[in-house]
């Protein structure tokens, strides 16, 4: 399978300038993501994962370097091509689930794609909860809702920032399986940020390991387990081996530079 390059990141740096200090959140980051690829980004807290993702989304500009989506220079959000899923489910609490899913359609002044929304709700196990307010849904349901909201726009690229970070371990596994199910069906290009190395290995085709201060891409790990993957994969020796080696990297970079 030869795949086209979806996202091309060239020498991206992002520097935050605050009153008191200057933070090099991302430095000289270059990589690309192929069409339909599932990439996970891991790294210690504060190493620049969110910053990188926001650069990829067009939500904020890189200080230097460029991002190309399908060969086109990214300068602003591309609502029809890039979907963003945030750490908090970010459902508007004054809108019901279905109204939340309809929000992007209203912003774009487009008719709601009922067929797709229905199908996604079905897969997400949210049928029957359309008229519930976010306050009445569990954490996992809210996250699924926010993924449905993003997917209902049928974007080519899905950027996810620790979408399952706030969930308990069991719900998280469930959500991982749900996400893989959706991905295997739609083959979106996904860049998924996570704290959890095992989540990254379980989901990804490739894992980008970042080291902090300044945030750099320190290592790329190819994960070649067959798909569809079973949840017990995480107990296999090969899985644990990869887990250990990435973990050493992340830990090492933390203690090495953080003195």
């Amino acid at each position, binding site marked *: 399978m030869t795949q086209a390059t979806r996202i091309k990141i060239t020498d991206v740096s992002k520097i935050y300038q605050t009153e008191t200090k200057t933070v090099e959140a991302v430095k000289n980051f270059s990589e690309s993501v192929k069409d339909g690829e599932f990439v996970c980004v891991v790294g210690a807290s504060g190493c620049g994962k969110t910053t990188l993702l926001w650069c990829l989304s067009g939500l*904020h500009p890189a200080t230097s370097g460029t991002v190309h989506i399908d060969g086109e220079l990214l300068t602003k959000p591309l609502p029809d091509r890039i979907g963003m899923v*945030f750490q908090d489910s970010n459902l508007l609490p*004054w809108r019901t689930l279905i109204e939340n899913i309809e*929000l992007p359609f209203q*912003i774009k002044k487009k008719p709601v794609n009922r067929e797709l929304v229905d199908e996604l709700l079905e897969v997400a196990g949210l049928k029957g909860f359309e008229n519930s307010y976010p306050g009445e849904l569990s954490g996992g349901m809210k996250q699924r809702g926010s993924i449905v909201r993003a997917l209902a726009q049928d974007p080519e690229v899905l950027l996810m920032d620790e979408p399952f970070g706030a969930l308990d371990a069991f719900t998280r596994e469930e959500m991982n399986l749900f996400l893989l199910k959706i991905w295997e069906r739609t083959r979106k290009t996904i860049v998924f940020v996570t704290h959890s190395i095992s989540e990254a290995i379980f989901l990804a085709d490739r894992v980008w390991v970042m080291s902090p201060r300044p945030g750099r891409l320190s290592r790329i790990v190819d994960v070649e387990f067959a798909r569809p993957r079973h949840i017990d994969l995480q107990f296999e020796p090969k899985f644990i081996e990869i887990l250990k080696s990435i973990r050493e990297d992340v830990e090492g970079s933390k203690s090495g530079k953080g003195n």
Partner: protein
Amino acid sequence: MATDNLADKIPDFNSSGGKQGGNGPVDVSAIAGIRRAKGIKEIASVLALAIVVVTLLEFILIWSNTEAYVFPKPTSIIQSLFTDFSTLYWKPLTQTVQTFFMGLIIGATIGLALAVLVTLKPGLDIFISPYIIILVTTPMVALIPFLMLKFGFGMTPRVIAISLATGPMVMINSATGFRRTNAELIALGKSYGATEFQLFRKIRFPFALPMIIVGFMVGSIFGLLTAVGAEMVGGGMGLGNRLIYFSSLVQMSQFGAVLVIVATFGVGIYSFFTFINRKYASWDV
């Protein structure tokens, strides 16, 4: 550039005001949060207690032989309310209500507009805020003599004073609400290509609504205070003027009746906004 750095300018009205947490510069969430009596039984018991309190007061006044000019009996106040309402109280009530609402509408409109302005142009904040703080902290009744020199004895000086009392409250609370809108929610809107206007309409405004309602509630209460105060200082009309009038004649039952009307108006304002809050902002707990 259209995509300026969102995270860089997560605005915070509080940090400039020096107070952290709570519900912004004017924290009245406590007033808005009193639990509502539920069910007929509870409402009945609350009413029963009120009747007991009033009756007790009546009997204490009778037993202690308190003269009416020292403290009017509840029954005489109630009687006056019923018999004199159309002759003594209706006209001043309409005058007060009219000036109050005109002041509120003008003040709240300007206040909301300014709140939107400082949200869209955060740089303006430091220029506008000092005046808002001065207006919030200075009792606007104090302006009445001065305003009357300029605008005479009509409604104008009062309406201006009431606007000046309500507007800043609405503004300060609304601005805090707009600015406190979760940066990720704004980012979410932007990621779907929302315009600044859409962000306001679909995200900032609903998000800020509970705070805006609180601003209206506090603003209205300040406004009523100013309205009645202005009538007491400025003479001429309204319930405040009647308070001065009846007390100078030592007609304490009538005085009490006016007081009851003012209090009812105040409680009415409170209940109205509490109701609005429950109806339109119940998601915010």
